[in-house]
């Protein structure tokens, strides 16, 4: 479905754009817990950067860079970070997701909460990124019989 | 009245359930399988019998299992009436088990394991019906009885048999639904479902509501008791193997229906409430119609088992008539008739089965001269016929005597007339068979040789016929039916 265009402009611009996109995605992620933004938004941007890569360079090229297997692992990893931090709070004697109880090297409970939510956002970031790319690849690779991979 | 907690009622039910499990497990080895049946039948009878002395001493045996719904337990209680029915059903099961072996093997029937399995379950359920302490327990066993009998009715698996099975279910499940409604409504009105001698519904509802309730109860249980015009399933179900017709459709199932009617009349509504509501007379007329109508229809049947079925329908209504008359003698007659009719009718059915196994004949018109071939069988048949017509010394006359006496006590001459007419009709539809069998020549020459059915079948036939005569001479013989029945009447009327 995705036809590879031999278009230098698009390729070049993408090559320039993608690193900045990704950097911005990480910025959005890291500021999510006290300003607009967060793991989901950052994850979508990160995912979009890869989607851009697919559009510019075609499926084959993109697949060489990121495999479905890796994406699955990223998605699961994100979920594990998320639920792991929550469960960690359980182990520390708090309720689920009670970051205040987590032993971060910070002085106050609100600061610990901020650290906790950042961890959560990172988990969400990975998952959302991976899932976005997965959905795109699965639908885009319709012609190539992508159902079974 | 003394309540005693006892495991025996539960044991009586479980013994045949256990047998049914063993039957399934040993289905591949017929001899072992059938010995379980006989063992269970014997054990069951002994267990029930062992309860008789304490019941006669005025005790009531009770066993409470789990609570089914707030205030109502799965409870077994052996009072005189329950014991009476339990004795009858378990006693005749012994005869039927032996007979079944002869019959099923004689015909090389298929699926015998299923047959014996369902039979054992049906008997458990029958005893459960007999020993139920409240309406919900009763209904539980009643439904198990219905369902476990279905495979027996459809046993032959021919299209007709399957149709008969469907009809059976259609009638009985519909009636079950009506009963369920009645029970739920009773619970709503009274908050209790426990049987109490003399009834517990008095003053629990408006007369209109109670009358409606009575009608739904009688319609519901009356389907199993095959009242006309809701009797049609019974003649159709005669397609089942003969032992099934004999025990279940002459004794256990239909009598369970009648027994339930008795429970409702005497232990839920109670005689005084019924006479207050004037329902008894309505019921009397209703069942009288069945008595006469079924007898007339029986005249028209050529198939022997169908004729017997219609006779059963008519005789069952005797019992309910007696209960509805609510005088002491009538009640006694009605309860006695449960057992006596059982013995006589099972003899007749056994004979019909023996004739079928030996000669393959089912229709009366083909039975010319068959008495010379099978004199013992047909002799037993004659005994049963005499009994049902109410001629001494076979036991039928006794119960009929009490019923007539009861009608006179109630001041309703018309029911005496009905009973007598029905006796005449009995003569009219049974004696021609006996006449044909013994005095008419068979077509195509006389098979001079005697050819009785195997002893597996003959022994139960003769035993049942003999018992009918003995009970006619001494109703208290062996298992003291008369005494238990009198006690049951006393329970109901509160004559202590």
């Amino acid at each position, binding site marked *: 479905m995705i036809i590879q265009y031999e278009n230098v402009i698009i390729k070049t611009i993408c090559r320039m754009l993608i690193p900045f996109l990704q950097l911005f995605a990480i910025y959005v992620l890291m500021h999510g817990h006290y*300003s*607009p933004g967060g793991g*989901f938004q950052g994850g979508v941007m990160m995912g979009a950067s890869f989607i851009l890569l697919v559009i510019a360079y075609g499926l084959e090229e993109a697949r060489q860079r990121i495999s479905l297997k890796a994406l699955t692992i990223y998605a699961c990893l994100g979920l594990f970070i998320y639920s792991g931090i929550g469960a960690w709070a359980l182990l520390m004697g708090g309720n689920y997701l009670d970051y205040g109880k987590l032993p971060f090297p910070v002085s106050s409970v609100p600061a610990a909460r901020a650290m906790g939510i950042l961890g959560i956002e990172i988990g969400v970031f990975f998952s959302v990124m991976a899932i976005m790319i997965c*959905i795109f690849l*699965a*639908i885009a690779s*319709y012609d190539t019989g992508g*159902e079974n991979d | 009245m003394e309540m005693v907690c006892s495991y025996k009622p539960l044991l009586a039910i479980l013994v045949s359930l256990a047998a049914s499990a063993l039957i399934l497990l040993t289905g591949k080895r017929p001899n072992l399988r059938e010995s379980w049946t006989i063992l269970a039948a014997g054990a069951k009878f002994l267990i029930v019998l062992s309860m008789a002395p304490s019941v006669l001493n005025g005790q009531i045996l009770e066993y409470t299992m789990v609570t089914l719904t707030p205030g109502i337990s799965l409870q077994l209680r052996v009072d005189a009436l329950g014991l009476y029915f339990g004795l009858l059903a378990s006693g005749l099961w012994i005869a039927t088990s032996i007979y079944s072996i002869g019959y099923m093997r004689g015909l090389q029937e298929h699926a015998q394991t299923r047959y014996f399995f369902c039979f054992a379950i049906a008997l458990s359920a029958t005893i459960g019906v007999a020993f139920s302490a409240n309406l919900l327990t009763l209904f539980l066993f009643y439904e198990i009885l219905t369902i476990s009998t279905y495979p027996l009715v459809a046993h032959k698996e021919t299209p007709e048999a399957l149709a008969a099975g469907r009809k059976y279910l259609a009638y009985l499940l519909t009636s079950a639904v009506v009963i369920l409604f009645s029970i739920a409504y009773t619970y709503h009105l009274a908050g209790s479902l426990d049987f109490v001698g003399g009834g517990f519904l008095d003053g629990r509802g408006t007369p209109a509501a109670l009358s409606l309730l009575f009608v739904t109860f009688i319609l519901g249980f009356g389907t199993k008791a095959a009242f006309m015009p809701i009797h049609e399933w019974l003649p159709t179900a005669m397609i089942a193997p003969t032992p099934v017709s004999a025990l279940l459709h002459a004794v256990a199932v239909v009598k369970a229906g009648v027994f339930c009617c008795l429970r409702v009349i005497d232990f839920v509504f109670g005689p005084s409430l019924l006479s207050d509501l004037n329902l008894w007379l309505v019921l009397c007329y209703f069942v009288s119609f069945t008595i006469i109508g079924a007898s007339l229809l029986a005249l028209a049947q050529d198939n022997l088992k169908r004729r017997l079925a219609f006779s059963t329908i008519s005789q069952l209504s005797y019992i309910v008539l007696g209960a509805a008359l609510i005088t002491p003698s009538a009640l006694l007659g009605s309860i006695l008739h449960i057992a006596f009719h059982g013995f006589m009718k099972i003899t007749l059915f056994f004979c019909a089965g023996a004739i079928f196994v030996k000669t393959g004949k089912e229709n009366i018109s083909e039975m010319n001269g068959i008495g010379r071939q099978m004199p013992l069988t047909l002799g037993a048949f004659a005994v049963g016929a005499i009994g049902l017509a109410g001629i001494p010394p076979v036991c039928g006359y006794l119960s009929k005597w009490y019923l007539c006496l009861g009608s006179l006590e109630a001041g309703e001459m018309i029911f005496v007339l009905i009973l007598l007419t029905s006796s005449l009709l009995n003569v009219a539809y049974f004696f021609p068979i006996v006449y044909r069998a013994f005095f008419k020549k068979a077509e195509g020459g006389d098979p001079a040789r005697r050819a009785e059915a195997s002893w597996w079948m003959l022994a139960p036939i003769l035993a049942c016929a003999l018992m009918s005569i003995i009970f006619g001479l001494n109703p208290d013989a062996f298992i003291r039916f008369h005494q238990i029945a009198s006690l049951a009447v006393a329970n109901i009327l509160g004559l202590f």
Partner: protein
Amino acid sequence: MIEYLMSKYNYWIYVVLMMIGFYAMMGKRNLVKKLIGMNIFQTAIILYYISIGVKKGGTLPVVMEGATRAADYVNPLPHVLMLTAIVVSVSTTGVALAVLLMIYRRYKTLEEDEILKSMR
């Protein structure tokens, strides 16, 4: 009357959008159009939620200099809720697209009538 309608214009817009979506879901025979209708439907609800968080004169729900009262900020909660709802709607669309692909592979069409014909 006009004033009444205008004062609640956010509700009217969402209702109209929702009905457009509803019509597409129920009335259209093409499965993709149905899917688009579904998206419109969901978006209408998101719009509705966002609009109920608005306050006249309120500003971004991020602590700012000079805005000290609660009335100075719009209600952030509906927005947060809708963030979740958007995720849900994206995933629903994803699943629906995947299912549509399966349908297309199997029947080579996305017209409901033709699919039903070929199933028979």
